[in-house]
């Protein structure tokens, strides 16, 4: 076992002060996850008002300005404060455990990252308390709407909050890369890393490439708004198109920053509940790298309609992403193929992810083609597409992760009956909410309108979408109830309730302060399976052997 040295603790380690001063990766992981859940509550409440507003034609509940603030904060919160940071929270907790490390490489930097994230989120939401209201320029805040077009301090607070959150993400990415490169357990060569860790390294690289342009853009917005800059102001020789280039150079990789970690989570869950090693380990890693590389070169497919970019280049690059993503699907199906599949809630959500993300990916391929994009641009078709990718995809995978790792984190099991009911409520609710939006978009319903005329079919489809959103909400409440009941009346989980393969299952639930008292010998990417089956030959060995 490797040796560690702990810095002397300053004062108390318990209670509020303990949480405020903690630098332990597991505590910080929990803080991330709980905080993102709270931000999800805000984002969900904003979405509930949006759906209620659109339930019937010509019957808005809120005015135009409030509606703009709601969709801006909903998008901002879900993208910057929920989906991506939740994955970082899971990685904070699980990555050191999966690689056999005692903690993250830089524990205090890790704590700083969390507090910057929390404060960034609060600064963004504090815009609601200002006299002129919160930011209302949409989550991508196009200039000049976000510069000369937005009055009041809400937009400034939005940019400042995101600057803080960006700095947080960059620091976390550095920490995750350094931890994985330097703190793997003896024998855990890179080609024996769990796929989730590979996906987190690649995600971290994407963060390091994508977030500096975002931070630059935010700083330039603040300069334009507060220091008399005209960088994005065409009337003074600036360029609004440059804003779009800068923003989407961040914005499209951000989609994969929100998706790749969840690909990794699914790749952890499917083999365990199929009782098979992952099919095509090397293919999984290389396809992740290919997706990440291509994602850096597709930013301007968000700008087809500007006429200011080379559409064939960006269309070709965007369509190419379907190839490595398809490889992943083949590998996921190959992993499940002829496996002894069991269907606990985590596996149900993982399969739900596969179905929903497939639909989101298919509509993504469609809008990667400029002629279709011209038709669908800024309609509800795009809203449906991105929600299938991030809601039906990432969010379902996040819930799968919670059901899978909750026993490890807390030491107790979540109730499976409630979990299964939650899955069906959310699966039906999700598809009822977002599938009609494809039809609405194709029928010409624009996004970001606070009311609409009673055109044929629009009222019914919006009503179905709102009822579906209600079902989704019930599913989320059921999940909270499940967590509450499970913690109040604990059913002990033991160290390895699922028969897991990776190192986190080799320690207690919850793990001790520096994670392990002893580590098993690492001979493949399934060290705990090898430990349980020392004489097993075949898949595990093959999986290790196929690695370069």
């Amino acid at each position, binding site marked *: *076992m*490797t*040796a*560690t*040295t*702990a*810095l*002397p603790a*300053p004062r108390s*380690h318990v209670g509020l002060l*303990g949480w405020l*001063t*903690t*630098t*332990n990766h597991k505590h910080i992981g929990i803080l991330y996850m709980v905080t993102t859940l709270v931000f999800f509550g805000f984002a969900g409440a904003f979405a509930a008002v949006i759906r209620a507003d659109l339930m019937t034609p010509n019957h808005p509940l809120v005015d135009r300005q409030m509606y703009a603030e709601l969709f801006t904060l909903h998008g901002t919160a879900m993208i910057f404060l929920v989906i991506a940071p939740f994955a970082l929270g899971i990685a904070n907790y699980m990555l050191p455990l999966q690689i056999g490390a005692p903690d993250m490489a830089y*524990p*205090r*930097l890790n*704590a*700083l990252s969390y*507090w*910057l994230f*929390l*404060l*960034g989120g609060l*600064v963004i939401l504090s815009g609601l308390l200002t006299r002129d209201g919160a930011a209302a320029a949409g989550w991508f805040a196009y200039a000049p709407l976000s510069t000369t077009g937005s009055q009041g*301090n809400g937009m*400034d*607070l939005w940019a*400042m909050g995101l600057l*803080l959150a960006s700095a947080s993400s960059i620091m976390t990415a550095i920490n995750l890369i350094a931890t994985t*490169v330097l*703190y*793997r357990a*003896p*024998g855990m*060569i*890179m080609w024996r890393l769990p796929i989730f860790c590979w996906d987190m*390294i690649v995600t971290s*690289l994407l963060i390091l*490439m994508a977030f500096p*342009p975002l931070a630059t853009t935010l700083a330039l917005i*603040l300069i334009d708004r*507060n220091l008399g800059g005209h960088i994005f102001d065409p009337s003074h020789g600036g360029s609004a198109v440059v804003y779009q*280039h800068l923003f989407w*150079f961040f914005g499209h990789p951000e989609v994969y920053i929100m998706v790749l970690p969840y690909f990794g989570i699914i790749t952890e869950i499917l083999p365990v509940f199929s009782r098979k090693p992952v099919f095509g380990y090397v293919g999984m890693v290389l396809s992740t*790298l290919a997706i990440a*590389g291509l994602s*850096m*070169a597709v*930013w*301007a497919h968000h700008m087809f309609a500007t006429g200011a*970019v*080379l559409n064939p*280049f960006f269309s070709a*690059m965007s369509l190419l992403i379907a190839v490595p993503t398809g490889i992943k699907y083949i590998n996921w199906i190959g992993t499940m193929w002829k496996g002894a599949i069991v269907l606990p809630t985590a596996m149900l959500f993982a399969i739900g992810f596969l179905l929903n993300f497939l639909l989101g990916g298919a509509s993504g391929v469609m809008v990667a083609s400029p002629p279709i994009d011209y038709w669908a641009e800024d309609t509800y078709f795009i809203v449906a597409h991105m929600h299938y990718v991030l809601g039906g995809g990432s969010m379902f995978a996040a819930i799968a992760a919670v059901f899978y790792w909750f026993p490890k984190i807390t030491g107790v099991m979540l109730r499976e009956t409630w979990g299964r009911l939650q899955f069906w409520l959310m699966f039906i609710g999700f598809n009822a909410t977002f599938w009609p939006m494809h039809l609405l978009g194709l029928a010409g319903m624009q996004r970001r309108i606070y009311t609409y005329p009673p055109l044929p079919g629009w009222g019914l489809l919006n009503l179905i979408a709102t009822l579906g959103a209600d079902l989704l909400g019930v599913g989320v409440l059921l999940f909270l109830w499940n967590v509450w009941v499970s913690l109040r009346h604990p059913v002990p989980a033991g160290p390895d309730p699922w028969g897991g393969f990776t190192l986190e299952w080799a320690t207690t639930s919850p793990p001790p*302060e*520096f994670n392990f008292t002893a580590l*098993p*010998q690492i001979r493949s990417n399934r060290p705990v399976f090898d430990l349980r089956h020392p004489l097993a030959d075949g898949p595990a060995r093959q999986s290790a052997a196929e690695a370069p």
Partner: protein
Amino acid sequence: MKTTEGVLLASASFSIVTGGIYWFTSYEPAGTFMLLTMAAGLAFAACYMALLRRRTALSSDRRDVHMPEAQGEAVGVFASHSPWPVVLALSCAVGLTGIVYGWWLMAAGALGAAGACVGLMREDREARSS
């Protein structure tokens, strides 16, 4: 570490090739600059990894290492608690909002951040000397 280095180099090469193709098909400077900057960043990281690999031998890079061989290997110093990260983050947030709400907030934030940095450095020095 060799694998990480390879990943970074491959990514840098991809960025250079993509940036080249993009420039010669579009003559669009903003995107070309960003792609080539990305290539430079990745190449820099790859070079750093190559240097690090020459100085460091990790048991985690050995395919056939036995656990007892790595026994007692010192892997680092880990702080279990520190008050300074939250102070530093709070100072940054306060300082940044000073752009809108008054420069005095920026000064207060800078002061707090400087104090937190000093605290972090002292904490680190004490830990390493103990």
